[in-house]
């Protein structure tokens, strides 16, 4: 649901379940659309026998893309001004991910209301897999 500027306060927290039991097929879908065909994300044999990982793991950009929905579902993708993250832990098939945005500031700039947020995504163990920030324009 779209939020209007008048509905938002500093400290508001928006939280969504991004995915439950992440499927390998979703990694394949993301490879196909993004163009990142790194076998680390689709090729279990390569991961285990050549790369030294227990299996395929998610593209950081898939986690960032899923997390972005916490912001775009509320403000609209066309209103995102800034979005940046650090990838802090790998995401694996079977993981459950929860995304959270906390409103740090509400400010006026060039006649627009801008919302600054801190973004965090955690897995089912409570480990942070992504941390970052976003700024979105709130419609009046």
């Amino acid at each position, binding site marked *: 649901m779209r939020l209007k500027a008048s509905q938002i306060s500093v400290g508001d927290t928006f939280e969504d379940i991004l995915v439950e039991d992440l499927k390998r097929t979703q990694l394949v879908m993301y490879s*196909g659309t993004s163009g990142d065909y790194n076998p680390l994300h689709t090729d279990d044999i390569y991961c285990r026998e050549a790369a030294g990982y227990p299996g395929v793991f998610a593209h*950081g950009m898939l986690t960032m893309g899923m997390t*972005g929905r916490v912001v775009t579902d509320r403000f609209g993708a066309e209103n995102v001004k800034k979005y940046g993250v650090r990838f802090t832990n790998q995401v694996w098939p079977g993981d459950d991910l929860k995304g959270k945005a906390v409103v740090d500031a509400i400010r006026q700039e060039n006649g627009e209301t801008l919302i600054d947020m801190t973004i965090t995504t955690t897995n089912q163990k409570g480990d942070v897999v992504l941390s970052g920030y976003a700024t979105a324009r709130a419609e009046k």
Partner: protein
Amino acid sequence: MSDKKTITFPVEATHVMMFRRSIGDYAVPDTGLEKAAVPPTFPRAVAQFDPDYHLRLKPGEAWFGSGKKPSGVEGKPSSAGGLHAEQHFEFLRPMVPGDVLSVTEHVGKTWEKESKRAGKLVFTERVQEFRDQKGELVCISRGVSVRTERPVDQK
């Protein structure tokens, strides 16, 4: 992408539809013909239009994924291609289907760090600028990749 190359990136509605599904967003109309909003991470899909992109199979070139053997390339470091450490996007205006963007890339800073879980880490920053047909800046994308000395230890 080399330092001076310019890539043409057509932002197409069906590509946006498929991209949105791949990040679990099924709110997009299935026809693919609507002017659906472009997710903020979509600019990275410019890789599809880069003729030299290193993470796509190319005819006649060795590929490090499995076939007859676990890897089609001998003696590659175990973390071939590196991992993505950071990603930042800044939008000067929304990207919309119908845009035909010109994308340039340059290499930014590089730095090193020691890590308990993966040995020596070498970070490289790459900055891409996306301009529209009028030459106006639409988006700046800054990615940081990391090459690890060994696979990241799992806890």
